[in-house]
């Protein structure tokens, strides 16, 4: 058996000629115009680019939330682009965690219950309380979202995402709604998760400074990759200023 065939040695994602078109005819919007990309296992990858450059679309397709219009996208040895609804659901349930800009917590559930929402259906989840301790919210686990600050809510969202011990964590503007100090705390949690659990992280952001903490930075423009930069040295989240 060669290293090439072992799924664990394959890159987490590999895309070829990935396209996404919304609408049709004159009104068609080309969100992705042929994206070729490799995301090695265990890396923290930052996607940078202006609004509408296609980074969120790519994230949604790789996360199994949306379907590509053309090209291929592979998660390890599995083709995502051909999967049906059921297979995508299983994929999200077993391998993927999400963190969104607006946290998307269920307002009617406590912090811990929001995490349980995911551990409930995961294959090998962490203890929800432990996940909350990981993001520094062990003490506030019985609070409702309305009783938490924005940064705390985002940390709950991260705890919820990592609690299932996903292979990949997708973060769409995780610090977009936060002030810089709170944002740094959130980034630190992400870096810790990446380092301690080996979770591959794909993070979309507007904050260019965030790139300094990534293994790899992918610049987007007009639905295509303009440039890929690999950081030889990375900054700790605490050192980032934006």
């Amino acid at each position, binding site marked *: 058996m060669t290293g090439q065939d072992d799924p664990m040695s394959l890159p987490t994602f590999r895309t070829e000629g990935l396209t996404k078109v919304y609408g049709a005819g004159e009104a068609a919007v080309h969100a992705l115009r042929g994206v070729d990309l490799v995301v090695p296992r265990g890396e923290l990858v930052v996607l940078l680019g202006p609004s509408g450059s296609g980074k969120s679309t790519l994230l*949604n397709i790789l*996360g*199994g*939330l*949306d*379907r590509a219009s053309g090209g291929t996208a592979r998660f390890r040895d599995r083709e995502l682009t051909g999967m049906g*609804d*059921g297979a995508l*659901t*299983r*994929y*999200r*349930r*077993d391998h*993927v965690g*999400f963190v969104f*800009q*607006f946290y*998307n917590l*269920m307002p*009617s*559930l406590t912090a811990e*219950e*929001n995490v*349980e*929402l*995911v551990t*409930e*259906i*995961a294959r090998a989840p962490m203890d929800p309380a432990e996940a909350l301790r990981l993001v520094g919210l062990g003490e506030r686990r019985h609070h409702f979202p*309305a009783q938490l600050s*924005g940064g705390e809510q985002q940390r709950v969202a991260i705890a919820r995402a990592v609690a299932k011990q996903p292979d990949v964590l997708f973060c769409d503007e995780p610090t977009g*709604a936060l002030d810089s100090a709170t944002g740094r705390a959130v980034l630190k949690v992400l870096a810790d998760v990446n380092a301690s659990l080996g979770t591959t992280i794909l993070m979309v952001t507007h904050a260019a400074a965030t790139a300094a903490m990534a293994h790899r930075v992918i610049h987007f423009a007009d639905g295509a990759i303009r440039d890929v930069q690999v950081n030889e040295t990375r900054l700790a989240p605490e050192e980032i200023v934006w």
Partner: protein
Amino acid sequence: MVTLLAPLDRKLLRDLWRIKGQALAIAAVIALGVLMLVMMTGLVNTLEETRRAYYDRYRLADVFAPVERAPDRVLERLAEIPGVAVAVGRVTGSALIDLEGEIVPVRAQAVSLPDHGPARLNDIHLTAGRMPDPDRGDEILLLKGFADARGLAPGDRLQATMNGARHGFRVAGLAQSPEFLYTTAPGEIVPDDARFAVIWMGRDALSAAYDMQGAFNEALVGLERGVNLQSVLDAIDRVLEPRGGLGAYGLEDLPSNFFITEEIEGGRKNAIAVPPIFLGVSAFLLYIVISRIVQAEREEIGLLKAFGYTDWEVASHYLKLMLTIAIAGAIAGSLGGIAAGRAMAGVYQDYYKFPFLVFQLDPRSFVIGVMTSVLAACAGGFGVLRGVFRLAPAVAMRPPAPADYSGTGRLAGLWSRLLDQPGRMVLRRLQRQPMRMAGGALGIATGMALSVGMIGVQAGFSKSIDLGFSVLDRSDAQVSFTHPQSDKAIYELGRLPGVQEVEPVRNVPVLLRHGLNDHRGTINGMLSAPRLARAMDEAQRPLTLPEEGIVLSTTLARVLEAAPGDVVTAEVREGRRPVLDIPVVAVADSLLGSPAYMNMEALNAALKEPGRVSGAYLRIDSAVQDEVLVAIKDMPGVAGVALKAETRDSIQTMMDSGMGMMRYIMLAIAGVVTFGIVYNSARIAFAERVHDLASLRVIGFSRGEAAFVLLGELGLVTLAALPLGALLGYGMAAAVSAAFSTEVYSIPLTFDAQSVGSAALAVLASAAFSGWLVKRDLDRVDLVTALKMGE
């Protein structure tokens, strides 16, 4: 730490708590729909079961066979008829009771009691006092309903005229009987407790009064099970024929039983027709509300799917939410329906004078109520869920894409001149989600239709009475004779001072047959162009009664399935009892009873009894009415006088106390349902728009300006609902008035400006009040929280 509930279930409970106001409003509407169904079917079942048990327990006869005079030994021959289980004879006769302060004596029926022990058939239920002493001929039992209406009690004395002789009696006790649930004086169409009495007394004394010693003039027959009624009736008629048999008839033709049957059947028809309408309206509301609640949860659905929850897991989560509301409503409605049915049965027990009540529910009504609620909730929820599931989670989590406005570009210029920004928001939303707005308008319209129908029925009842007592019958009083008289009696009536107009009438009891249908009733022989008591066609033009043929009322034509051109058979039940074949010449519009009309001379000619009258309609100078009544009372052969005003009052009472009373309850429920629908529409609009409205407040709109966006939408949807509600109301009014019509009275379809206007006002008032409630909530919205929500 409690971990018994899965997090989704905890979300469910807290979501329910969050939308508790809305959930309660929805559950209440569906509860009312179910309540109505359970109550009506329970009530009807209870009345039917109670009547059956009452008849059984007091051994009400299956066949009644009046005869001129038959010796007691004839009973043995009746008992030998195959299928007859028991035959007893009794003496009955008509009497007149003089009451203090009453000018006109009250008509009564005297009935003999067996000399020893309880009656083998037609037993009575003693409610006060004791049985008459068989050795004392002056002791009687009095029908409780009459005694109550006239304030008589055991120990009281009264005077009665029997067979022309006056007797003094002492009331020994009061009694009820399944034979006299309703009492109607001969010749009248409406039962009235106060105007007809039943006297029970010892057989000896009564036989003496009517010269019936050793004989009977009515046979009561109990049948064995499964016997063909008609063949027994024929056999009894053959036995009694030589003795002057007047025609045996079954229980179904007993007047009291006919009325109670019509009432219960009317109730059953009502229970079948009306509650489903309420339930349907409730279910439709449930469908709309649930679909909009689920629509509002779009983002959470997308999120759950992003986590990897399957469609089925997400669907079952919302299914639980919908079913909790629907089933809670259905259960509340069932329990409320049981309580209401029980309470109503108690009211009707008094009204129908049942000595006891057998409360019986219809399990099907629960099943139907719960199933309808569940199906409506599921249809509403799954319709939306299917749409959401079709979307990729990423799309579902975004708010729905804005609609394409390029087509409205030309209007934009006009708008900008006419409308300010909030006005445009209202209009754009109507335009952007026309289906949702149409659904809202349709919901309010069905609520309004319910009110239109129920208000229309109230007017229909009044119209029915007005037609009967103001248009058709323009007399003041009706005189009836004990036996048909020569028309000289008419001249004598006309000569009385104060009598302004007299119109003869010849009423003949008949059994009308057409094909397989028959009807026991009366042919009213009238002048060819009567002025006081008239028959009218559907356009309310007076009908002239031709020399030949019979005119049937609409109800009777329906019962007999006969139309002009058909020939009906009339088996006359008095005199020489001829059987006549008479062509139907017209159908007359009558809303009370089911009369048949003929030209009096033609009728008399057919009977070979020229110049005979059985009564008269009078117009009386109201200043001397009492003197006229005294004079009539002293005329020979007069059986009684019915004042139209009293008759009108008694039918009004019947319509207001019997099944007709249901219309008031239904009107109240219709009002509540209508309000519930409008309020729900307002609440949903509020829930859907709370973020937009908070944003408006944040950028500097006043509370009033922000509220305008919401209330303007509610106002427009409500206005759109009004014409639609009027349209649907027409159908509703037709269905409901048909459901309330019986053979005793018909309720015409009434759809007039007044019903529609009243219902529209009710809807507008509901909308204003709902708007006020929602505005209050809007004023309380925490802007900071709303801002933090981002989207």
